[in-house]
């Protein structure tokens, strides 16, 4: 694979430890994130996979304090970005980090761009704010960065409004804004979910290319296991606000250990496989997260459930080199991939 060289001995640029977020709603507390820990190295792409409500977006929003508090409350946790804890920063310093050292790309490019300002204005704003560039310098840099993300005739398009761009082009603009201040970390929250497959393929190729050129660390949130397979170095699988499995991408797909990961991979119909008689499905629903999990949250849907799962929540432990899983059950080492 065309992976850039990642220094695996260097300390991670971003290290999150025990992050816990609760929402206080009218119907009581919702425990959205229940002690999530992960790290990201420079030049690395970490895929975060999970269903809606698994806490993947809330985790990333929490560490940038992008959630309104209340109703959200970050109960515990640290998020170290090069020696500073993002969760302890005061609003002024945090403002410098957001869009500066950490870039964010959101799912829906229509709602995350302001419709009443030109794309050029929105692109130049962080450049002037974070890098202190003059209007002229910011404009030059904006043109450069629009060209980098593959927008034709960038000079003319600076004066266009978001509605004048197509979905794929708008997402390129979002990526351009996120990249404009040379971030060390780029957090992309379902950046291709709202796009068509042919446009998704364009954006994925673009991110692969930019990553090699700019060498930043990327967190890529998605529910699409196909997308992750093509771009990630490591993957973490989330369920009910917990990391249930974490591994290098090849290990995760060849030897998935958590029954949830195994079931997810087994339920996927693939475009390159011939038809199976019936899709395997995971019965039941994800849990309502009204309390912090005291037993395994997947127990009710799990094919390998036993008594201990209902009594104790398994911790995330390393079972092989760089492969962590939170499960009391261990698959047979000879077991095939699709037996879940």
């Amino acid at each position, binding site marked *: 694979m065309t992976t850039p060289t990642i220094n695996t001995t260097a300390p991670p640029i971003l290290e999150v430890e025990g992050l816990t977020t609760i929402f206080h709603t009218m119907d009581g507390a919702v425990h959205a994130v229940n002690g999530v820990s992960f790290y990201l190295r420079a030049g690395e792409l970490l895929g975060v996979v999970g269903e809606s409500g698994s806490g993947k977006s809330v985790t990333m929003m929490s560490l940038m304090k992008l959630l309104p508090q209340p109703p959200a409350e970050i109960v515990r946790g640290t998020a170290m970005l090069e020696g500073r804890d993002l969760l302890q920063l005061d609003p002024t310093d945090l403002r410098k980090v957001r869009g500066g050292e950490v870039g964010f790309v959101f799912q829906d490019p229509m709602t995350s761009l302001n419709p009443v300002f030109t794309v050029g204005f929105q692109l130049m704003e962080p450049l002037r704010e974070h890098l202190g560039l003059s209007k002229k310098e910011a404009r030059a840099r904006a043109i450069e960065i629009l060209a980098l993300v593959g927008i034709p005739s960038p000079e003319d398009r600076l004066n266009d409004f978001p509605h004048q761009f197509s979905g794929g082009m708008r997402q390129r603009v979002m990526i351009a804004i996120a990249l404009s201040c040379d971030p060390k970390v780029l957090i992309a929250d379902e950046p291709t979910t709202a796009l*068509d497959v042919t446009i998704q*393929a364009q954006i994925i190729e673009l991110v692969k290319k930019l990553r090699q050129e700019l060498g930043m660390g990327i967190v890529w949130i998605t529910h699409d296991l196909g997308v992750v*397979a*093509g771009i990630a170095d490591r993957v973490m699988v989330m369920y009910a606000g917990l990391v249930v499995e974490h591994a290098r991408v090849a290990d995760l797909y060849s030897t998935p250990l958590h029954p949830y990961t195994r079931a*997810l991979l087994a339920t996927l*119909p*693939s475009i390159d496989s011939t038809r199976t008689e019936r899709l395997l499905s995971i*019965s039941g629903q994800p849990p309502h997260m009204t309390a912090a999990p005291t037993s395994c949250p997947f127990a009710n849907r799990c094919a390998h459930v036993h008594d201990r799962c209902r009594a104790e929540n398994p911790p995330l432990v390393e079972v092989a080199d760089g492969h962590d899983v939170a499960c009391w059950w261990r698959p047979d080492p000879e077991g095939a991939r699709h037996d879940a």
Partner: protein
Amino acid sequence: MTPETATLERTGQDAEVLLSVQNLSKHFPVHKGIIRRQVGVIKAVDGISFDIRRGETLGLVGESGCGKSTAGRTILRLYDATGGRILFGGQDIAKLSGEELRRTRPRMQMIFQDPQACLNPRMTVSSIISEPLDEHRVATGKAKQEKVRELLDAVGMNPRFANRYPHEFSGGQRQRIGIARALALNPDFIVCDEPIAALDVSIQAQVVNLLEDLQKQLGLTYLFISHDLSMVRHIADRVAVMYLGKVVELAPRDQLYSDPKHPYTKALLSAVPIPNPEVEAHRTRTILTGDVPSPANPPSGCVFRTRCPVAVEKCSAVVPEWRKLSGGRHVACHLVE
């Protein structure tokens, strides 16, 4: 129809054609100015033709805005067709109106994409499912309640939930309610418009399995509209690919996926990510450049030529003809032999 004959006909080549769409068009006028003068037309569906055999699933795939949902709705007469014929059981329903159309409606139903939006939040599950029964005066009183229970049971929901409201259910369960409503009048044909797009991966498989089970039990015929090419490969018998209001290729499932003929089908298939890192690492992709042109101002000649990697001069001058190839395949491209 018994399940046995349904299976037989699914495999048979000469099975009865239930629905025949011939040169169907749906154009939306564009109005502008104070007096709302018509200034143009959006050709959402522009002369598409295909047959669907009884008991078969035809997959209809394409990117957003290609007209696949409009095609589905026009076939059901939720929109009036601009041109062409829709032969349903031999009768041209494009021309029907009033009472005659009303009488054919129960035989064709629809399952919608967003189970949140298509269920009235103020109605109970029971009243949602029995509304078609009331409307077409099929059952009343005890018989109606019994039918509702049967339908809920058929889609794998507990009949005790009949008096609950849609918000009390998850997305997958809501989609089951939508399916029960579509089944209420014993239809022959169901248009499934992106029925799983709004659901989570682990729930998608449940709903797709349900649709397949129901098809086997009841001998249903599906038009399965989706942008998820992997799921279409699983569920469809034949697949039609749409681009900018036109069907560019139609073929039996396995042929289409293993040997796509149209350059657009090739590009579309190569853009779908495969959940296997080893395969992904060694894949060469055809990346299409640019975006889908506006259907208000489509390119001359072949509509795909502006993004086509192999387009030649002829493509901009002559509209490619919808040609029949061997093996029940159809394609609209000058460059396919």
